[in-house]
């Protein structure tokens, strides 16, 4: 296990966004975090990556306690992530966006961009890219940053269907390379196809953990999604 959360809670005003959350992410696997809108998925990501401080609970990366560490320190410990709403550096070129993640040669940058089917010139200013391309650039940037755990918040949202299929190949290749992928995803076909493990979150609590096949059959999960 590479990541573990123990009794993690976070309240915003009166809203219990995350409520005594417990789960683990296994090394060298693809794990998906799913749940209805507002279930607390993004908040869980923000807590793990140090952008939000939990009210209580413990988060470990490997054997290291990373609870409450600053975001840049957690990143340096080996967690790389993307955002639900893309966060590229708008006024920087594609190359400079990548270089913020790591010092790299043009060749290395191009190799990563090519692996995710991004074909715009390195000098293009990020704000001139389409939204889908910006998402890919953000993914490429997260891939370039040295990491042991890659966390993606809805990687298929706003990406065209062809690239959505490619994304599966990309993530499987990462797993082959020994990387661990932890993603939030709304596209169930995508989740069920690619995941080794699925974690279902509802109202800030873990509702169910299991293999994709077990999840689709679970009555509680269906209720959470469809309402009772």
């Amino acid at each position: 296990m590479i990541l573990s959360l123990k009794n993690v809670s976070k309240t915003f005003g009166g809203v219990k966004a995350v409520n005594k959350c417990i789960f683990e992410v296994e090394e060298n696997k693809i794990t998906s975090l799913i749940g209805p809108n507002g279930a607390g998925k993004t908040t869980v990501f923000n807590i793990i990556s140090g952008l939000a401080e939990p009210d209580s609970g413990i988060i470990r990366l490997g054997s290291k306690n990373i609870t409450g560490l600053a975001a840049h320190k957690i990143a340096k410990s080996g967690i790389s992530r993307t955002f639900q709403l893309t966060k590229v550096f708008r006024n920087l070129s594609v190359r400079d966006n990548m270089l913020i993640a790591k010092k790299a040669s043009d060749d290395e940058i191009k190799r990563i961009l090519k692996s995710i089917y991004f074909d715009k010139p390195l000098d293009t200013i990020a704000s001139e890219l389409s939204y889908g391309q910006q998402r890919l650039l953000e993914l490429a940037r997260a891939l370039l940053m040295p990491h042991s755990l890659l966390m993606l918040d809805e990687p298929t949202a706003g990406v065209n269907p062809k690239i959505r299929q490619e994304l599966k190949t990309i993530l499987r290749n990462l797993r082959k390379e020994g990387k661990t992928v932890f993603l939030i995803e709304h596209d169930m076909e995508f989740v069920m196809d690619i995941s080794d493990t699925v974690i279902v979150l509802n109202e800030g609590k873990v509702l169910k953990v299991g293999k994709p096949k077990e999840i689709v059959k679970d009555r509680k999960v269906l209720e959470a999604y469809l309402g009772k």
Partner: protein
Amino acid sequence: MIHDFLIYFLLIVLIYTIIVMSFNLAVGFTGLVNLGHMVFFGIGAYASALLALSGAPWYLAVPSSALIAALSGAIIAALTVRLKGDYFQIVTLGLVFIAVTLSRNWISLTRGALGLPGVPPIFKDSLHYMIFVMAVFALSVIFFYWLTNSGTGKIFQAIRDDETASSVLGKNTYFYKILSITISTFFAGLAGSLFVHYIKFVDPTIFDLEFFVLILSMLIAGGLASIQGSIAGVFTLGIFVELIRFIDRVPLLSTVLAQHPELIGASRTMVYSVIVIYLLIFRPRGIFGRVEV
């Protein structure tokens, strides 16, 4: 006469350019809208005046005053850069009022409103001084070009565009924001020092908002996040400002202004505000700007 005016004009423009470039580093390149930037210009001027008046040679007074401004900048930055945009602007604007109050009332140090006259010049004649300032200016331009294209400069720009994304890419944004303000205020202090050795005098009016508005107009006219923009902004507006100096000699206007001398300052501010607005309509990013104002 023309010769003297040209030297005067160049000196002022070169010094202003150092201020505007340093202001641009914070505002345009790092996204830190430090409305108290001119406070550090004033700190440099006062520090240099006090050091020189107490007998320190210029080669000690000038760098020390820049360092004193940078140290003040670092301390202020450490306390304020975590504030969200609007709050950062309000607090840094507040620095101006603190500076005015201190410089007016800390009589034993600043002589209050009387100011500090008799600051010794670095060179006896202004032509030599102009050449000296031009050398400092040239080195500053080279430094700013180098910095803003370096890895550190790119991190500043990344923080400006998206601080959260910078932090999850392993960048200590708190540190880099302090670094940016420290460098920025170093050059503001340096400019203040060069200024006071030329004017040979400093008093609390150095913190006047009218002066700040001029610097801000030059920055915006030239364009954010562009060094050549800052240079162009100062030269363009500088020429207008020098022309506006004679606003009270324009026929018709002169009769009005003679009766209401208090309007002269305001009318100048108005003229360059109009120039900036006019410019921004046609070039929303300023002359050379790369990011939206």
